[in-house]
């Protein structure tokens, strides 16, 4: 299958990424005008009807989140675009912002109008300096159009605090407020009680870009791609033992195997050319065995049969020379380094998992590891601690998959 290009601009796009011509060529000026003529309720209804789900990991229905912020009490509201992108194997927001920064920003403006926010933040990963400059330039274009600024929606770029945890939505809010990037307890959710206590809408870059292309077209067009449950496309960050690693835009419902093998996508396995497993969803993701990959489509329902989820769209491919225990140790090191240290299960648990794996505990201490992993999943405050043991559990559940 040739790659679908909706969020990523078509290959024959002629205009510069940051230019007024790009706004026209991609239909974003049309999207802005159409949106500005609509009532917030109607904008939200359209987002709901499109079936867009969050692309940052949790796949929460976007329209429902917007309705929540819209209905929340309080005069001041904020919109935040989450461009902190620090999940392992995830580099799609960067590519998206490099290739088409105006799209995501138009999504931010549509969101701001829908929830009546006058102020928006773009929280961008600290290492993405060039992307940040591109975003700033794109904001200048939107300001020239009269859509960004003190009389419209004020958009401020904030540079990330340099930690994986800062991408978690409530830690991100603390970081914008100038505090330590530690997650807050939910509830209250940011939709009601976000930045400085005001209702706040937080969306991933790719989610915002979806909103922009939706308004550049319409619901019917949007749903022509993907599945009835999950319309649209997903950016996949393909890495590891594939011929053509990179970011690909794939319609929901597409066979997982084809993402790896299609000539226009992964181009097939490299290395030994024999698949041992994929890790789907990054460090917080799940290992899937070859036959599970074979039997799955890129959709939440299909993948959940194997306890897997798409997460941020990171897809790492391992050939059969890779020892998955070694991968698990790398993941354990990552989480031990990135835990914020606020709650006991994650603060100490991530360290103990690392130690136990280093002592080859996967074989000798499997039951202790499992109980530790379950306590972390169940009792940690935030998604980091809750998902840190997921990959480990996916291996513990499939002992025959550990490999070499």
């Amino acid at each position, binding site marked *: 299958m040739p790659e679908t290009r909706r969020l990523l601009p078509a290959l024959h796009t002629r205009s510069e990424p940051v230019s007024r011509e790009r706004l026209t060529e991609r239909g974003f000026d049309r999207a802005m005008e159409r949106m500005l003529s609509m009532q917030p309720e109607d904008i939200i209804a359209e987002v709901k009807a499109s079936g867009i789900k969050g692309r940052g990991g949790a796949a929460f229905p976007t329209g429902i989140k917007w309705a929540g912020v819209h209905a929340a009490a309080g005069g001041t509201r904020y919109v935040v675009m989450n461009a902190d992108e620090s999940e392992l194997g995830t580099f799609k927001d960067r590519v998206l912002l490099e290739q088409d920064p105006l799209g995501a920003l138009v999504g931010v403006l549509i969101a701001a109008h829908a929830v009546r926010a006058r102020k928006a933040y773009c929280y961008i990963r600290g290492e993405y300096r060039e992307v940040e400059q591109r975003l700033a330039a794109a904001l200048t274009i939107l300001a020239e159009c009269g859509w960004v600024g003190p009389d419209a929606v004020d958009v401020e770029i904030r540079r990330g605090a340099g930690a994986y945890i800062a991408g978690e939505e409530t830690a991100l809010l603390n970081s914008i407020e100038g505090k330590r990037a530690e997650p807050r307890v939910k509830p209250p959710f940011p939709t009601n009680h976000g930045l400085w206590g005001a209702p706040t809408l937080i969306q991933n870059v790719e989610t915002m870009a979806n909103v922009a292309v939706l308004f550049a077209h319409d619901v019917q067009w949007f749903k022509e791609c993907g599945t009835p449950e999950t319309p649209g496309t997903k950016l996949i960050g393909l890495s590891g033992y594939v011929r053509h690693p990179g970011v690909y835009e794939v319609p929901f419902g597409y066979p997982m195997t084809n993402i790896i093998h299609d000539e226009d996508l992964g181009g097939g396995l490299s290395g030994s050319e024999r698949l041992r497993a994929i890790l789907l969803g990054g460090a917080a993701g799940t290992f899937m065995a070859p036959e599970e990959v074979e039997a799955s489509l890129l959709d939440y329902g299909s993948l959940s049969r194997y306890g897997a989820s798409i997460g941020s769209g990171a897809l790492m491919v391992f050939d059969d020379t890779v020892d998955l225990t070694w991968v698990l140790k790398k993941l354990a090191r990552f989480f*031990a380094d990135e*835990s914020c240290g606020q709650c*006991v299960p994650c*603060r*100490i648990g991530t360290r*103990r998992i690392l130690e136990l794996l280093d002592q080859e505990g996967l074989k000798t201490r499997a039951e202790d590891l499992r109980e530790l992993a379950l306590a972390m999943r*169940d009792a940690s405050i935030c998604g980091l601690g809750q998902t840190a043991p997921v990959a480990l559990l996916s291996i513990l559940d499939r002992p025959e998959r550990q490999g070499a």
Partner: protein
Amino acid sequence: MADEVTLTIDGMSVAVPRGSTVRAACEAALVSIPTLCWHSNLEPANACRACVVEVKGSRALVASCSRVAEEGMDVQTASDRVRNSRKVVAELLLSTSDADLAPDLLHLAEISGADKNRFAGGATWQQPVKDDNSLYIRDLSKCILCYRCVEACGEDAQNTFAISVAGRGFNAHIDAGFGRELPESDCVFCGNCVAVCPTGALIGKTEWTLRQNGQWDEDRISQTETICSYCGVGCELNLHVLENRIVKVNSPMDHPVTHGMLCVKGRYGYEFAQAGE
């Protein structure tokens, strides 16, 4: 009633005032919930996770010390997931920290059937005792990072903000700013952090010295209540006396004036007045 909510705890229906926490609702239903970081006079820090319960419809377990009870909530306090989490929390803390003076942690370990050796043998919090002032000792090998001292020093009582958590992950620790010693920090030595510390990681110097010498004997310590005479606020003091010597001063946590919090004069002035005699 409009200002009450009714929820189910382990199958029992209980009504509590709106705004109550799930923990308080459990208490009302006579179901005891273990807690470590929660303290009646401080904002919940949500850090220890000893108090988690299972709420129907919620994927992760819920910290009962901070979660507000809702109408119709269905709470399980002893499910397999709850019991496993409590046990692992106790085991993890016992694997890092010295629990000798931490009755709540020892209690949690006992009721959860924790095996203190299960996750032991790795990195610990073992570190030298910090003896950098004449009023209290910081023996952070005992610390469980419950945040109580931070809360007491900050918004919840003292408003001094002398200490906070620094570092990440396993290296997160209580710090008086840039690793300074206390006398160089913003600390005013009110000892309110000492009063709320559940582990003896913060401990009055007199008590610590007596314990070191094997002379601290709870059975021989008598307690006398009095009103502090240093100023006119009317703080109630609880003088702990061992062999005619004041060895510790605190204030009842439920006292309407102090809520357990004192200033440096009330908490340490009496010990010092007599030391000079």
